[in-house]
């Protein structure tokens, strides 16, 4: 039985982010009042609660803040990926985002490792920002 992997249910908050990913850019919200980037995309800034927000293309660089090596899959859809690394990436611009580390060597992933975004197409609609160790 082929079990399909879960895809994001894209909404009005997240549509520009996923659209940019499809085009190979990492775009996240930037607050026009306090000047902070945030993730995940919201309608108000989580820091100063301003709604003066726009999407900004960021560097795509950051470091591994924490991670886990999944030895048991998150459901049958991920069974073929095991072991795989789910990581919380701290972007150079400040926000943290959950992603996957693209690697053949999960044991070598560590907290503080420098990473860079890489885009992995899942469907015509969805491209995921994964990260690789640099």
């Amino acid at each position, binding site marked *: 039985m082929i079990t399909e992997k879960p895809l994001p249910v894209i909404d009005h908050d997240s549509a520009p982010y996923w659209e940019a990913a499809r085009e190979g850019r990492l775009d996240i919200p930037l607050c026009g009042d306090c000047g902070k980037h945030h993730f995940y995309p919201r309608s108000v800034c989580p820091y100063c609660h301003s709604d003066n927000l726009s999407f900004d293309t960021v560097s795509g660089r950051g470091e591994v803040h924490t*991670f886990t090596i999944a030895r048991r899959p998150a459901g049958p859809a991920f069974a073929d990926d095991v072991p795989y690394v789910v990581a919380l990436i701290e972007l150079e611009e400040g926000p943290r985002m959950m992603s996957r580390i693209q690697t053949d060597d999960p044991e070598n992933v560590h907290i503080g490792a420098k990473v860079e975004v890489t885009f992995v197409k899942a469907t015509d609609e969805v491209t995921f920002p994964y990260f690789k160790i640099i």
Partner: protein
Amino acid sequence: MKNGRDPVIVGIADASLKDGKFVTNASVLGHAALVAKAAVEEAGLKLSDVDGLLTAGMWGVPGPGQLATVTLGEYLNIMPTFVDGTNIGGSAFEAHVAHAAMALREGYCEVALIVYSSDQKSLRSRNLGGRPSVLSMQHETPYGMPTPVGGYAMAAQRHMHEYGTTSENLAEIAVATRKWAQLNPEATRRDPLSIDDVLSSTMISEPLHLLDCCLVTDGAGAIVMTTAERARDLKSKPVAVKGYGEAHTHWAIGEMPDLARLLPAQKAGERAMKMAGVSHSDIDVVEIYDSFTITVLLSLEALGFCKIGEGGDFVSGQRTAPGGRFPMNTSGGGLSALHPGMFGMFLLIEAVRQLRGDCGERQVEGAETALVHGTGGTLSSGATVILQKD
């Protein structure tokens, strides 16, 4: 200063399990009703005396479980005039005790019934996948995050990185908790367990092993609260609710403000202890939510039983085991007694049993004050209750 409307717990009940499954034949609501009836009867009350109904659960969703208190009230044929369906995960029941306490003090209710039931083991409804990929979860689920263990694993990894905590430290908790379970005939897992057993058990989500994780069982429990004044005419020995606090910080683990520090426990614990007028040295027995070993370590630090980062040292040498200096999770906890999905109910029941002196072989000598702390979600919420022998 004592007041006739001070809140007290006067009834408790839980369902018997065999191999982690209910032994009686009833639906998930049927088990809720059976423990509700047992708890009010133990108190010397009737279900028709209940005017406050509080519940949280995962049953019947989508469907009647979306309005859980309403559905449960209908099933029991009671018409509460104070209701609370607060669901902040496994700590919901500690928050319910707080909310019922406030309603009792205010005269908004006279008899509050808190109920929980889950047949997840019998239904085989638990899995690691879980959360639909909508709203904030669209940024987590598609990456294959094992839920909820992956979030706890990420916190453990961060704690190890910042403070040098080891897998052995975490295993100490699982082993100590199993020793308590061995003294509890109702506990699901009672076979001997060593630190090596924990470390050599299957790795699930690094750095957490299978035996760092709680059980998956059925379970149902109920608590009845009323005022000190009303309790004087009842047959059970009341346990006083002296303090409470609650807080939450995030749902997605990526939004946790500091992955090595459990802020909800810090906030809830401080408030509860201040309200009760107790300090750490006054606490005789501690019941802390053990969804995973790391949950306990983070809670102990945040509640102030040791400094942040020193949890590993604190639990070493089987300090929390029977005969140790810090009696904790005396039923065998979620790690070894039962874990039906939202364990907070059973922390409260065990604390009441300890304060009543009803715990047999596992009784903590001279237990007069207990601290109960629940954690819910993915280290998301925390709620603390301080209970005292009346």
